[in-house]
């Protein structure tokens, strides 16, 4: 088997491939060949090739693959020449294998020579697979170097997505695929394909079914550090729902437009969130947000001004100084992505273009029926590139609505745990520090919707820092949250009809704290709404970037929507109100008994923390008022001084 590649076409140098290399290379070859839908060539010599069918790999995917190896262009040219592809004019299996071996040699630092490939070499690393391999093999050094490139790499052809399978194969056989191992025989690669799929199933249920979501997961996983690399790790499960949403998005988009840029795709939950934020700034969804308003809003995200300026440039397509709803969503998404560590793209990705966003998201309402329609369309339009993937992806999508609830249940529990962990920590921090620092801390904590909370989530190795956790929480709460909204007439009521897709919910201790506190303040004291409103409105501005300055009533829901724990808002809502709202929950949650149990347990746990948070909130609001007064005084002084200094 090792020499089959060399012996088959006979035009390349003799090649010794280890078992792992054989599988890896054949997978890559299949991708490149399948990606280009290469015509059936002469029967490949190796048994492994027979199953894959194509004998030649098209130059395009091959070139992309080589570029993903991160080698300089001249090295790649040398490799191409050496492997004989230039001579014969195409990439046959021999040439391809030789090229891959040379890439591995080059990446190992060896000179690009035919002799280099005679020795044992590690598998060539390509950007897409690199992160997989790195994550699993626990090599964080390269991980950081490569993770940043993920968004760009996702723009490569889908053939790369199959690298995930390859990597899963690698991981499944990591002991045997070490560079030094060279077993004499290996089963045909095609037999391993189901194994990889099975393995991927083992890993995290459904997320590896999709190549694209897996890649999307990578950057999400990376910020969590190597700890998330373990299969079956809890964060992975939380990511699963997010990945599922990504995968659903991706499948749909693949069928529609074949956009490979995963990180720039806005999920429904994110879209919801963005739309709500837009509404908070501008009640009319069809009009603009002015530049200054948007500037104030986005400045709260704590990105640097040049970055915000660049994001604005990208998202304000018509350069009119104002953001329409799709432009706003694009800008928000870019900000969120940037805060999660993605480098900003050079140009507006196609999935963030206003026309695309308007077409893809005609209405800010989503429900599970939509997802089911996606799955149907997906199954109808699956590309024939990879039958296995198609089947698994279709099955995954079909299962999408069902397991979401399970996942959300799991998510809730996990989030609850993280919240509970976070709460005592934050509470202790706040109580220990003086008032000023408390207020200062509270502001950034509660204000940033994705910075500190997501960073904390990342540190804890929790769910991936999905941009707006709030809408996801909303959805993960399923109908319970919707019912809450139904009972109280605010804008979020529009979401009441939505059934949530299962997003991952990163823990949001900070906002949940402030939200809970604010809720305890607000809800139990409905009679004092005016005073509360006065207190809360200034507090709100600072309290949450994700809680846009809106009415106090809205704020009640926003914490509900935005708390990481679905049950928290209901519990924090105070005894009678929450009970009243919670009670209808079980009826609606018949669909997901797991959610119910999770909610109930979360309710119990969260009630304990509410009292402390209520005290904290009152203190913080007091500080906030004081600081506001100081600020007003300073501004007055400034105004008085200004005419003196201006010449």
């Amino acid at each position, binding site marked *: 088997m090792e020499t089959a590649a060399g012996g088959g076409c006979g035009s390349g140098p003799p090649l010794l491939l280890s078992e792992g290399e054989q599988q890896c290379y054949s997978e890559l070859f299949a991708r490149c060949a399948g990606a280009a839908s290469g015509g059936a060539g002469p029967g490949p010599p190796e048994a492994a090739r027979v199953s894959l069918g194509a004998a030649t790999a098209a130059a395009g995917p091959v070139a992309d693959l080589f570029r993903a190896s991160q080698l300089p262009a001249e090295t790649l040219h040398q490799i191409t020449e050496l492997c004989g592809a230039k001579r014969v004019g195409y990439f046959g299996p021999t040439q391809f294998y030789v090229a891959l071996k040379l890439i591995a040699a080059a990446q190992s630092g060896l000179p690009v020579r035919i002799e280099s490939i005679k020795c044992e070499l590690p598998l060539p690393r390509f950007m897409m697979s690199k992160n997989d391999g790195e994550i699993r093999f626990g090599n964080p050094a390269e991980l950081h170097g490569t993770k940043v490139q993920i968004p760009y790499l996702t723009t490569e052809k889908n053939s790369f997505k199959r690298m995930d399978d390859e990597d899963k194969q690698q991981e499944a056989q990591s002991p045997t695929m070490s560079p030094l191992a060279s077993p004499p025989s290996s089963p045909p690669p095609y037999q391993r394909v189901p194994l990889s799929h099975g393995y991927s199933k083992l890993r995290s249920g459904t997320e590896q079914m999709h190549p694209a979501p897996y890649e999307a997961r990578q950057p999400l996983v990376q910020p969590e550090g190597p700890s998330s690399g373990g299969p079956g790790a809890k964060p992975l499960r939380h990511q699963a729902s997010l990945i599922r949403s990504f995968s659903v998005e991706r499948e749909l988009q693949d069928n529609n437009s074949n956009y490979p840029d995963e990180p720039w795709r806005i999920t429904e939950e994110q879209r919801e969130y963005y739309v709500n934020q837009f509404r908070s700034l501008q009640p009319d969804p069809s009009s603009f947000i002015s530049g200054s308003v*948007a500037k104030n809003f986005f*400045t709260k995200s704590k990105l640097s001004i040049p970055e915000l300026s660049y994001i604005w440039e990208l998202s*304000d397509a018509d*350069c009119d100084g104002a953001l329409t709803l799709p432009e706003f969503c694009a800008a928000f998404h870019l900000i969120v992505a940037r805060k999660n560590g993605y480098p900003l793209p050079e140009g507006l990705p196609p999935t963030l273009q206003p026309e695309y966003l308007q077409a893809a998201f005609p209405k800010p309402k989503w429900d599970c029926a939509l997802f089911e329609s996606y799955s149907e369309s997906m199954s109808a339009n699956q590309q024939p590139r990879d039958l296995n993937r198609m089947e698994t992806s279709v099955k995954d999508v079909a299962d999408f609505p069902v397991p979401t609830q399970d996942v959300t249940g799991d998510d809730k529990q996990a989030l609850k745990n993280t919240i509970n962990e976070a709460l005592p920590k934050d509470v202790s921090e706040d109580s220990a520090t003086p008032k000023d620092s408390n207020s200062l801390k509270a502001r950034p904590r509660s204000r940033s919707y994705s910075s500190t909370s997501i960073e904390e989530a990342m540190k804890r190795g929790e769910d991936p820092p999905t941009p707006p956790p709030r809408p996801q929480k909303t959805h993960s709460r399923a109908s319970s949250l919707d019912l809450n909204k139904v009972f109280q007439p605010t804008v979020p009521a529009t979401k009441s009809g939505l059934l949530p897709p299962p997003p991952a919910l990163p823990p949001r201790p900070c906002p949940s704290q402030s939200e809970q506190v604010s809720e305890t303040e607000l809800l139990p004291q409905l009679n004092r709404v005016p005073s509360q409103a006065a207190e809360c409105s200034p507090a709100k501005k600072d309290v949450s970037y994700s809680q846009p300055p809106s009415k106090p009533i809205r704020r009640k829901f926003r914490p509900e929507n935005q708390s990481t724990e679905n049950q928290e808002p209901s519990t924090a809502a105070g005894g009678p109100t929450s009970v009243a709202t919670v009670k209808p929950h079980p009826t609606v949650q018949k669909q997901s008994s797991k959610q119910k149990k999770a909610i109930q347990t979360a309710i119990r746990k969260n009630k304990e923390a509410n009292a402390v948070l209520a005290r904290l909130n009152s203190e913080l609001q007091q500080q906030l008022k004081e600081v506001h007064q100081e600020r007003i005084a300073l501004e007055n002084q400034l105004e008085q001084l200004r005419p003196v200094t201006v010449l």
Partner: protein
Amino acid sequence: MAVCIAVIAKENYPLYIRSTPMESELKFHYMVHTSLDVVDEKISTMGKALVDQRELYLGLLYPTEDYKMFRKLHNSYTDVMCNPFYNPGDRIQSRAFDSMVTSMMIQVC
């Protein structure tokens, strides 16, 4: 043709300057200031009523193809200004502006 492009602020400091490698930026900056001085001179001598005509006249002194270039430049400049995150008086750091200027310089050189 366009070896250098500069955007000068009201206070006579450059908001943006980009030159081809041949020219040093300092030398070009001097030339820009000189040309601005010429314009100022023309304006001051002609009086307010004739300012517009003078400006137009000066504009025609340049090769007409530059007019297209100037329009593109000005459009990009207004796009930069539209950005609410841009503080007037800051150096122009917009990547889109940079790319537009680069394309203009490459195209005409």
